[in-house]
């Protein structure tokens, strides 16, 4: 009865729809990112999101409209830095991340200091998501899922062995750009769910949980998606009932799933 009562609230319905879509995206992309050792791109681009939100607030424009182009451009900057400046991905992410935080702090200062709005983005507030934001999340999520499904085999080949993928005629530069743009879009959406400080958890944890137990590439993506969605549904429910912050509850649930998968794998190997 309690559960049905929770589901009757409009803001819970909106949170569940947007949260599940975003969790699905994060989990699917997360598997590729973790295997390509780009896990921390979530952190880096979330920091850029911080800067772009500050810009949006300064310009008095809805932050999501500023964040999407700024974060997408920054993701391409990370790609260019790794290609042209002879940097590994982690260093390139570090540079762009620092630029995002520094830019955001300067803009917030120019705007007259930090305000409550900016802090709500740091920790996320999925329960305050509007109908328009659900609509945007729905459309963008469909676009990102279409990209992953269309380029699934290209992405798989490139993730396993980029050189071989190139020698198979796969346009690796183009696919890398499409992939990183989809990641940027996902991160902008995910900051609304868990906040800037925890967004990389939503990308990394379902993926690493899945990698403990999956025995194939497709199953790995499917299992990550299932864990991601369950964590969002469970996190919203538990946080509402126990009056806890939703973003942090989602992340803690993901950590519990990871620990369980790790123990399961360890036992399986011991018994073999």
């Amino acid at each position, binding site marked *: 009865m309690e559960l049905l009562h929770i589901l009757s609230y409009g803001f819970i319905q909106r949170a569940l729809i947007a949260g599940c879509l975003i969790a699905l995206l994060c989990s699917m992309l997360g598997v590729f990112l973790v*295997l390509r050792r780009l896990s921390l791109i979530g952190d880096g681009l979330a920091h850029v999101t911080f800067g772009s939100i500050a810009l949006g607030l300064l310009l008095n424009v809805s932050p999501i409209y500023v964040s999407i182009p700024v974060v997408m451009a920054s993701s391409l900057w990370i790609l260019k830095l790794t290609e042209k400046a002879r940097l590994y991905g982690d260093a390139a992410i570090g540079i762009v991340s620092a630029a995002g935080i520094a830019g955001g702090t300067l803009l917030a200062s120019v705007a007259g200091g930090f305000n409550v709005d900016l802090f709500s983005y740091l920790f996320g507030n999925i329960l305050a998501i509007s109908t328009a934001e659900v609509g945007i999340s729905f459309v963008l999520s469909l676009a990102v899922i279409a990209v992953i499904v269309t*380029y699934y*085999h*290209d992405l798989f080949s490139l993730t396993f062995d980029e050189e*071989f993928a*190139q020698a*198979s005629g796969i346009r690796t530069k183009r696919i890398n750009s499409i992939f990183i743009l989809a990641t940027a879009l996902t991160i902008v959406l995910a900051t609304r769910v868990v906040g800037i400080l925890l967004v990389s958890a939503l990308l990394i944890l379902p993926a690493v949980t899945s*990698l403990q137990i999956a025995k*194939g*590439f497709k199953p790995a993506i499917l299992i990550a998606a299932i864990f991601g969605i369950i964590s969002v549904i469970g996190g919203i429910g538990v946080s509402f009932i126990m009056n806890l912050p939703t973003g942090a509850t989602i992340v803690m649930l993901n950590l519990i799933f990871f620990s369980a998968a790790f123990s399961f794998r360890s036992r399986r190997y011991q018994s073999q």
Partner: protein
Amino acid sequence: MPVDIVCADRLCFTYNAAEVLCDISLQITAGDYIGLVGPNGSGKTTLIKTLLGLLPPSAGRIALFGRNPAEFSDWCKIGYLPQKLTGFNPYFPARVKEIVSLGLLARKRFPRRIAKTDEAAINRVFSLLDIHEIKDKRIGELSGGQQQRVLLARALVGEPEFLILDEPTTALDPETRDKFFSTLKELNQNQRVTIIIVTHDVADIGKYASKLLYLDKRIIFFGSFENFCSSADMARYFGEFAQHLICHRHS
């Protein structure tokens, strides 16, 4: 009239101002079986990558099946086994069957899909390399030799016309290695697959390959083993003992 599979003209490659390859001109024709040998740092892998268009040359021209590698699109004609997987993750969650199927993507058009109808080609290559029993295993669970056979299967599954193998036998035991070389011989002789194989095994390569390409930043020798073994220049360059060692197949 033999077809040029690869034609390189005064090819050079520099990295950080250091010359890695210099003045490389060669023609590889259909049906060639070339052993590419040379000391460490002689540019063997760089030459392979440059011929495939994976690295841009700093000077010179390349034609791959008559076309510039940047414009080349018939990638299904090429089977490539890289030297090693850079940053290979032993926890990569892919099964052997999934990895091998990636070798078929070169013949697919957008959006590339592996279909049920591709299973026949995958099963054929499993039989050829005798890896049926590991097809459902995760790649990270396999030994080095088994992984190498899986990657070779990925290179062969598309039935390429030109096979480029960069040190394919390093992790193979002697028995598997012999089997592997007889498979290559069969492909070369019965299906006229052109092969270029990078190896450090100078004493044995003459038993299998028909041509020798000896590289040390530039071409020291490129031609048949018969010409190499009778060359006074090569006897002077390598010394008679080393030349005899390379020509071991005739002993």
